[in-house]
């Protein structure tokens, strides 16, 4: 096949592209320029799309023997990922920008352009597996549970999955690094990237404070309704958060207090004991399905955080999304995050959590 490999300049995408080439595919490499003002060098493991990363990607393509180009997607990234991130936070939700990037950039803008230009598939260094089952190409968890990225790929539609290749899904990170060394790929020991690529210093709250106008507001005890402190702006808080409340010891009982609700409209942060965070019903909107829709009441597993565990549940498809009923309580579910539904290792689909509640 004629495939387009997205090279970030890191080790994973380089090995993925090398494997695709070795498997006999005709590989063309692109580096996605996502930042409007790229820095020269990466600092530690943070940030992305520096000129150094682009050069590393160029050299990886050289080693593989693939022609290399840079595609400028900075305008799309700004609109679909960064502005969405700011908008979600300003509405009191907690977005996942990596997932949004996969949804809007890598497997939409890039894949569509690649298909139009005559490529058959897009290759990336994501850790996930594509299995050809009875309903066509299915997205499955990676073999390495520590690296599994099926959660942030859950937004892929069946059509997108059928035009994607994830050659690293059957390997561990250790194996991939060793293979990079063996292949002479120069970035074999480059640190993994972490956190949010467009916030290179890792200070999300500080970054958001510069983007969103915030006002001080009250911190309210959810059990008593009493004001127990003030905050600098409700937008910066996430349900389940404990740090950054600066309450001292409000109850005197020494029990830890968590953010249990964020009301951006009234600029109120509600806090309470961890038991108030326990929920067992999740409502989620804008579902995207990686294959056939689930049957109502079907037993599934659901994952609500990128590195969280998956929990047994049932799912019901409703008019505006899905209702997921958990078989046990789950603590601290934030609106805006994705609920990714699995059947075994297979991703059924993903939806954005709008609210969660406790039902007895």
């Amino acid at each position, binding site marked *: 096949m004629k495939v387009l490999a997205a090279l970030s300049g890191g080790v994973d995408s380089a090995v993925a592209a090398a494997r695709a080439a070795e498997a006999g595919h005709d590989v063309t490499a692109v580096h996605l320029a996502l930042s409007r003002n790229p820095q020269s060098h990466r600092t530690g493991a943070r940030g992305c799309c520096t000129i150094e990363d*682009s050069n590393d990607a160029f050299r990886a393509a050289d080693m593989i023997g693939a*022609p290399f*180009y840079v595609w400028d997607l900075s*305008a799309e990234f700004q609109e679909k990922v960064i502005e969405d991130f700011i908008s979600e936070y300003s509405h009191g939700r907690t977005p996942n920008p990596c997932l949004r990037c996969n949804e809007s950039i890598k497997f939409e803008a890039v894949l569509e352009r690649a298909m139009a*230009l005559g490529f058959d598939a897009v290759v990336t260094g994501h850790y996930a597996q594509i299995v050809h089952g009875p309903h066509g190409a299915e997205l499955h968890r990676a073999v390495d549970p520590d690296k599994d990225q099926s959660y942030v790929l859950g937004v892929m539609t069946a059509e997108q999955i059928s035009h994607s290749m994830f050659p690293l899904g059957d390997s561990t990170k250790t194996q991939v690094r060793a293979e990079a060394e063996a292949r002479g790929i120069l970035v074999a020991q480059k640190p993994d990237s972490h956190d949010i690529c467009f916030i290179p210093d890792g200070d999300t709250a500080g970054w958001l404070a510069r983007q969103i106008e915030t006002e001080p507001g009250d911190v309210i005890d959810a059990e008593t309704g009493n004001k127990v402190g003030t905050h600098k702006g409700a937008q910066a808080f996430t349900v389940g958060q404990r740090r950054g409340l600066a309450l001292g010891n409000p109850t005197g009982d020494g029990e830890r207090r968590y953010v249990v609700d964020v009301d951006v409209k009234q600029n109120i942060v509600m806090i309470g004991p961890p038991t108030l965070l326990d929920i067992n019903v999740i409502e989620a909107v804008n579902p995207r399905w990686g294959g056939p829709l689930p049957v109502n009441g079907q037993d599934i597993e659901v994952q609500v955080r990128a590195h969280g565990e998956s929990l047994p549940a049932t799912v019901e498809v409703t008019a505006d999304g899905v209702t997921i009923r958990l078989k046990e309580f789950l603590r601290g579910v934030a609106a805006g995050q994705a609920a990714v539904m699995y059947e075994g290792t297979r991703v059924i689909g993903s939806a954005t959590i709008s609210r969660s509640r406790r039902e007895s």
Partner: protein
Amino acid sequence: MAYLDHAATTPMFPEAVAAMSELLALPGNPSSLHASGRLSRRHVEEARETVARVLGARAGEVVFTAGGTEADNIGLKGLAWAERERDSKKRRVVVSAIEHHAILDPAEWLRDDDEFELTLVAVDEYGRVTPEALRAALGEDPSDVAVVSIMLANNEVGTVNDIVALSAVTREHGIRFHTDAVQAPAWLNVRHDELGVCAMTVSGHKVGGPHGVGALVISRDCVVTPLVHGGGQERDVRSGTLDTPAIVAFAKALEVVEARRESEVARVSALRDQLVQRVQEIAPDAVYNGHADERLANNAHFTFPGCLGDSLLMLLDAQGVECSVGSACSAGVPQPSHVLLAMGASANDARSTLRFTLGYSSTQDDVDALIAALPSALERARRAGMPKS
């Protein structure tokens, strides 16, 4: 492979390769006082005389540099600084809107970091600077202008400016004039003594010489402040050990150009005209940019509406046809062409360009290969469309 990017760089002439190879293993720094040094110096000075003769200058007016960008920087900043030193009122630089980044960026640096003012000269729809536009940019009182820099031939659309007419405007006011002639010598008989300019930039690898060598031809009565300080090897204007093999090969290339230019201009412009006609047959909506006649013989520059230049370049490259989007890249990303924007194009059109430039080694096969590859590339690039700007 069809190489249609000679404006980016053109292969060295075999004569230049031979001249360079012969000298690479020889000892001798042209600044050394022993026999080997004197021999090396002799090679440099003979080359300087050749360059001077071909470009209509005196040998003492040729300052060798490490390429066109360095020569442009000396031509602009060196003249601006020397003029300000002479007359503290002279704090303005005037450059055309379609200059290469080797002029635009130092001009912006002078504005942003060195307290100069910058005036851009507008161009017409063909990318030409008219004497009227230059007069308008100079304004009613041009006594504050330290230097004017306007390129002889544009690297993107190939438009040729009437430097004689433009330098006449500045001479009325005693203003220093620099021209970037990097794209010109292979196709035009460029003579410093006829242009009426103070300084003129040329480059080795655009005329069949090696990379990493160029020259600034500076009139004897023009003072420039050096950018690089050191041994003062080149008239105290430019320091650094002279690259004898590269300088000799550069001079050899100019000799070849001088001998073959007339016949090559006729041959290549006919090939170019054929290319233009056949491209327009395939893509009737393609816009042929630049001026029909006042342009370099080797340049064909198009806007393909609805096609991203990047997409077309990649698709043609995959079929062995090598060309350019024409505009500068930032971190590998082609930027919308400032030249096209200055000529009045929309932002989308300024990203939908492709430049095909021929050279002395171009043949009919190169044009045929482009024409064979273009239809499918256009179809796919149209399907991919334009991204958000």
